[in-house]
């Protein structure tokens, strides 16, 4: 590297500085000052990240830089360090680049909000955490970022805390994520137990020492973390609810960056995953299943953001499918293109919501293209990109994943992905037609106020639209050997493929057939949507009532939320309540049931205490009050029941010991007892 690698610390430092400024004095600053600080800091980060990218292109060897020793001495030394390699560079570009555009868009979107400074503080804090997550040179630093992004996500989902639903959604997101985090943390401890280090470099270089079983255990634990963070089956339920947050937040956190952290983590750990075929299969199956499952839900939703949310879950599924079949570079490629077009879609949806005065129900939209021509144009570009129609970005990355799944020998997974692709195309164009074309279904009042968004919101959309148009070609053409594949090669190991497999890499007839199929299903989805929602709008209702059961199942999202509430949430609260009542009251009954024997002993001792207490009372001089309280309590019986519980505790421990532990002691005890009996 030409300039020192230490400079990378500037990348998270700029937004961190903005967090401090806006967090401490932001509420006294003008909107302009707040936004210049916040957006400017991310812009500066983007410049440094670009410089870093140039450096990494010149010298792709991984570079490590330590800021300070975080946990010192003993068996474990953990440094607060950063690892800069092509994978990190790509992620940093997405976070700061797309992040910058979303920050800029927020200037217009959040204009006039009472929590303006608070919003930008959280958003910058998120950027810092996300950067730490991808820059960290060991698992612990990654974990800090991992928790940090979850925290910011929680704060931003609940940003409009006037809405109860927003608060609930935030808490749900955080708690579900914590379940995933628990898996991550266990994986981290397993790694430490096995390698005695948490540095990537140590772990990956010694990965060969692992047995398959250990590697499987570790990677499955890590993958649980990824499932939580990246909203995969069965922990995806928080992401659609997370749409309660401001729309730019949905674009940044719940589409472009945070939810892809799980994908990044799997790719980062691909050395370990490669050693555990079972884990890879799990990743692939869960990815494909999620892609298909959430696409089906997306087919019938009416909330403009919820459709996009289920689409995000589905696209993340593709990325995991890619990881599962070993196409790590393709996963990152799709991550990047998805960041472009999904951020674009979310923000143009935000522009629509902005124009509609907060309305999100597509049944109350329609015909918006003539009022919002720019928004409509960029939205349609995004829709074509995600639908997988060449030559836009989504086609290249998605097709590559499907191709990899097929060639990897998993035609079932390929077929699931292909079906999901058809559905993707359908629900995206359904959205396009319901929102922008057909007859206007909104109130006259709303229609009168329709207006195109200000330029500060439109310009970022145009940049993203350009990236969605060309990004796939620039980064990933020709398929599997594009710039991004070669660039990521040193990390994902694509270049390490032995010569014999190089032929498989060349594009053959099979690839063209698969490609053709992808395009065909995408077009089929588009045409179906066009037929139903543009040409004959009445068919939609007719179809829904004809397949009422299916529609209802999908519309209600398979009742998964209700299922979790009934099987997990309510029972744990119930357990808490029962245990609480046990602590408070029911204990009396239990104590009585356990036996009068202990009660007699306890009563005796409490009686004794009673007399002792009088002595103390006279000394301290508070006799009346305390005595009254004691007598009352003793009469109600609680205290000696508590005391009895102590005795029961002893019995429990003795019994535990005798039953479960040491047979020799039991034998010893029995012999003693019989000996004494004999005497």
């Amino acid at each position, binding site marked *: 590297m030409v300039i020192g690698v230490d400079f990378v610390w500037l990348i998270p430092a700029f937004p961190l500085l903005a967090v401090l400024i806006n967090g401490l004095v932001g509420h006294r600053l003008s909107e302009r000052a707040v936004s210049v600080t916040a957006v400017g800091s991310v812009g500066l980060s983007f410049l440094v990240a670009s410089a870093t990218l140039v450096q990494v292109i010149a010298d792709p060897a991984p570079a490590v830089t330590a800021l300070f020793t975080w946990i010192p001495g003993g068996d474990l030394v953990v440094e607060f360090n950063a690892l800069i390699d092509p994978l990190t560079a790509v992620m940093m570009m997405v976070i700061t680049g797309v992040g910058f555009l979303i920050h800029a868009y927020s200037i217009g979107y959040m204009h006039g909000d009472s929590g303006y400074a608070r919003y930008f503080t959280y958003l910058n804090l998120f950027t810092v955490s996300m950067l730490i997550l991808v820059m960290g040179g060991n698992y612990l630093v990654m974990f800090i970022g991992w928790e940090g992004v979850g925290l910011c996500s929680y704060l931003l989902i609940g940003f409009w805390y006037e809405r109860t639903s927003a608060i609930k959604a935030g808490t749900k997101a955080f708690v579900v994520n914590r379940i995933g985090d628990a898996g991550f943390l266990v994986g981290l401890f397993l790694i430490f137990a096995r390698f005695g280090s948490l540095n990537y470099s140590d772990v990956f270089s010694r990965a060969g020492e692992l047995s398959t079983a250990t590697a499987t255990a570790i990677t499955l634990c890590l993958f649980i973390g990824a499932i939580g963070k990246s909203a995969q089956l069965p922990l995806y339920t928080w992401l659609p609810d997370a749409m309660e947050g401001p729309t730019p937040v949905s674009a940044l956190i719940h589409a472009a960056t945070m939810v892809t952290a799980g994908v990044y983590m799997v790719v980062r750990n691909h050395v370990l995953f490669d050693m555990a075929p079972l884990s890879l299969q799990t990743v692939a199956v869960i990815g494909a299943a999620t892609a298909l499952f959430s696409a089906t839900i997306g087919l019938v939703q009416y909330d403009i953001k919820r459709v996009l949310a289920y689409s995000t879950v589905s696209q993340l599924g593709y990325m995991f499918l890619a990881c599962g079949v070993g196409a790590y570079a393709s996963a990152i490629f799709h991550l990047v293109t998805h960041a472009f077009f999904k951020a674009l879609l979310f923000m143009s949806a935000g522009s629509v919501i902005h124009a509609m005065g907060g309305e999100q129900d597509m049944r109350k939209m329609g015909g918006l293209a003539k009022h919002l021509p720019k928004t409509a144009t960029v939205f349609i570009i995004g829709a074509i990109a995600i639908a997988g129609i060449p030559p836009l970005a989504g086609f290249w990355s998605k097709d590559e994943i499907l191709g990899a799944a097929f060639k990897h020998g998993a035609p079932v997974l390929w077929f699931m992905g292909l079906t999901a692709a058809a559905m993707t195309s359908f629900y995206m164009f359904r959205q396009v037609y319901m929102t922008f074309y057909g007859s206007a279904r909104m109130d006259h009042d709303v229609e009168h106020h329709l207006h195109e968004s200000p330029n500060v919101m439109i310009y970022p959309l145009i940049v993203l639209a350009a990236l969605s148009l060309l990004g796939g070609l620039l980064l990933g053409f020709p398929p599997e050997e594009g710039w991004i594949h070669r660039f990521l090669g040193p990390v994902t190991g694509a270049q390490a493929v032995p010569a014999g497999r190089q032929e498989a890499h060349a594009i053959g007839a099979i690839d063209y057939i698969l490609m053709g199929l992808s395009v065909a299903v995408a077009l089929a989805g588009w045409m179906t949507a066009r037929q139903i929602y543009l040409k004959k709008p009445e068919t939609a209702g007719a179809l829904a009532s004809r397949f009422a059961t299916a529609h209802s199942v999908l519309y209600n999202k398979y009742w998964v939320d209700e299922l979790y509430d009934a099987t997990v949430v309510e029972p744990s609260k119930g357990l808490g309540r029962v245990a609480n009542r046990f602590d408070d009251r029911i204990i009396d009954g239990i104590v009585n049931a356990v036996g009068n024997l202990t009660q007699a002993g306890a009563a005796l*001792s409490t009686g004794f205490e009673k007399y002792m207490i009088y002595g103390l009372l006279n000394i301290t001089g508070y006799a009346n*009050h305390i005595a009254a*309280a004691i007598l009352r309590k003793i009469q109600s019986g609680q205290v000696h029941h508590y005391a009895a519980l*102590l005795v029961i*505790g002893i019995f429990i421990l003795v019994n535990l010991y005798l039953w479960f532990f040491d047979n020799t*002691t039991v034998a010893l005890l029995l012999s003693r007892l019989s000996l004494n009996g004999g005497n």
Partner: protein
Amino acid sequence: MNFAVTDIGAVLPEVIVAVYACAILLIEPFLPKGRQEVLAYFGFAALGVAFYGTWNLMRTDLTVMNGMFVLDPFGNFFKLLLYVAAAMTILLSMEYLKREGIDRGEYYAFVLLATCGMMILVSASDLIMVFLGLELMSIPFYILAGFKRFEEKSLEAAAKYFILGSFSSGILLFGISLLYGLSGTTNLQALALHLRGAELQNPAWILAMILLVVGFGFKIAAVPFHMWTPDVYEGAPTPVTAFLSVGSKAASFAVFLRVFIEALGGIQSDWRFLLIFLSVVTIVLGNVVALVQTNIKRMLAYSSIAHAGYAMIGLIVGDSLGIFSLMIYMLIYAFMTLGAFGVVMLLRREGVEGDEIRDFAGLARKDRLTAFAMLIFMFSLAGIPPTAGFVAKFYIFMAAVNAHLTWLVVLGVVFTAVSAYFYLRVVMVMYMKEPDEAVQLSAPPGVVMVLAVAAAVVLLLGIYPSPFLDYAQEAVLKLR
């Protein structure tokens, strides 16, 4: 009987604290009502001098008083922690006592006497001393818990704590006498010698060990000996609750560890699985019951129970990493808990303490800094980085993994995830609910100081823990 002058030097910090406590009792009658606050400064002086003394003795390692009392870095680590906790308790109390109309000088004397008891406890190297320290610590607490003598809840707390505390002391004493009967000694080293290599001949050893577990388990509030905790924590004056949950717990853990590792280390395999059982039920019950609490003091009580469960893992592991992690855990736990109780004390609803969770509604908009401090404490208690609570849990779990107790770690981590829910509820109420105008905020300088220090330490230990960890590590090496 040999009694050297150096022996006095070794116990000087204890002597100083006790003398100051007696001095406070003597001066108190001569101070006019309303001027009793002066005595708080006596308390600070006592703790300051003792701190200086212990700081100077920090690296000494000797046993005095015929093996009754040991001065070592392990004990000194806890003593320094106790001084800080006691000083913060006094800071929390000064304004509070006036407000509640209970500003009597003996309060500070009792705090010092309890501190002295804890100091003896962490330095005891004989079971008789253990018992002495335990009682010297507990008796002032019985009184302190009932200090709001016009409030029924407080009296109830005192009565419950006293009766159950005495009962548990009796059980502990029973265990000690059994040990004496079996080995003919109460000295920890001598007990260890007795157990070394010897085949376990008598099941009474096991009974004695179990009785000790119950006695100490009561003090650290491990399930199923936790019954007193929520009632006492809720009823006692809040600064007393804070001191009880921090000082009493830290000192009891220190002696628990010393007795079980040093004296009963020989039968570790026998007590280990009992403690594992206790730790598991403590973690599970503490966290699950905390989910449904609506009173913040009761919630923090169950939280403190759960934390005892985590800290026990350090004891279960019992090697140098385990001991080290327990020490770190207690250090960090002390600051985050003192801070959390400090915030609770600031809220007033209609002239009484606002200790319901709903009283925190909209705190962020009434006082940004207080709310932010509480956010830090809650995140730290939930073990979320980059707060100190994460470092604490990280070390505990790391030690357990090292000792091949991975399943225990999985359980602990899962319940840490559960705990996020109830800690986060406080944050949610503070930041995302409309302020309740009936709840007022006070800002006594003492409490504000405690909050600032605690928040700073929690953040510092989370981000840059090295210096503290180094000292703790050194202390462990001396103990082993």
